[in-house]
């Protein structure tokens, strides 16, 4: 079944967001979004449940929440944005990998530096006394 684009696909790349080179059937494509929605709802519900539960060791909760969030981002990327590991998707994945690298550097670097500055800084009341 044609997806009706006027441009011919003579290249072996996919645009980000496009799922099929030649356009999948309605059922296939709808099933992808339904699967994504199901997984996303499951992961979101788990996140909200874990955040309020007393059943697990409390310090593990933030880690669990971050893992669940990353998993859900993966689900959204694959089922909604159609960023996959297929050979026709390498350009999109490489751009994403670079973006993720910068995001990790910004967040991880900021937290690392600021926690060290906090530890090495004199308590605020002592600074206030020195300024008098």
């Amino acid at each position, binding site marked *: 079944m044609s*997806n*009706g*684009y*006027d*441009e*011919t*696909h*003579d*290249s*072996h*790349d*996919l*645009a*980000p*967001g*496009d799922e099929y080179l030649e*356009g999948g059937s*309605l059922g296939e*494509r*709808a099933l*992808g*979004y339904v699967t*994504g*929605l199901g997984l*996303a*709802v499951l992961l*979101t519900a788990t*996140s*909200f449940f874990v*955040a*309020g539960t007393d059943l697990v060791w409390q310090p593990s*909760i*933030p880690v669990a*929440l*971050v893992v*669940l*969030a990353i998993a*859900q*981002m993966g689900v*959204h*990327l694959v089922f*909604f*944005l159609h960023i996959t590991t297929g050979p026709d998707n390498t*350009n*999109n994945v490489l*751009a*994403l990998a*670079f*973006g993720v690298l*910068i*995001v990790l550097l*910004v*967040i991880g*670097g*900021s*937290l690392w530096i*600021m926690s060290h500055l906090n530890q090495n800084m004199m308590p605020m009341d002592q600074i206030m006394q020195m300024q008098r």
Partner: protein
Amino acid sequence: MAGGALAYPHADPHHLGGMQATGTAHTGVAPKRIVTGYGFWIFILSDMVMFSAFFATYAVLLHQTAGGPSGRELFNLRNVAIETGCLLASSFTCGFASIAADFRNRTWFQIAMAVTCVFGLAFLAIEGREFADLVERGAGPTRSAFLSAFFTLVGCHGLHVSAGELWLLTMMAQVFAKGFRADIQRRILCFALFWHALDIIWIAVFTIVYLIGSAQ
């Protein structure tokens, strides 16, 4: 080695029989849809880098409440769950709008986009009410560094959703007036990317800001 038939059969040591032309063939410039989509994908990634700076700010300032209220006292997780549901549902219906656009079905495209719009507006309404409520309780962005970071991050996401709503209505009008031309199809592709990316950022917001923030 151009052409199907090989002039020198003995020069084909791997018995590919002219298969070189398939697989990694480079046949000129990529279609405009791929170039446009890729460019917009780069923009979305740079937008996510910008959000990562706001997330880092929020994480660093999480405990700097200046004696004011902390997340545990302020956040209403039931509202956040409803907001999350609205945005997820709108992302889902946006997917159906792109399917309808690919099949050039105007009616279903407009219906799916209208539903997407309504879910997005519901999200914005709940968020706006939450912000107004916080300011009314004396927990506005000027109260503490924590609240400044909170309003900047969540407000910036809300601003993106508002811009997305305007874009959504523009796309509905353009399809209504011009139909599914190739350039309109490319804009629909970019809009869908934008809308799904906003939902990805919201996953980070509800996890880091609300769920982890309300445990502090």
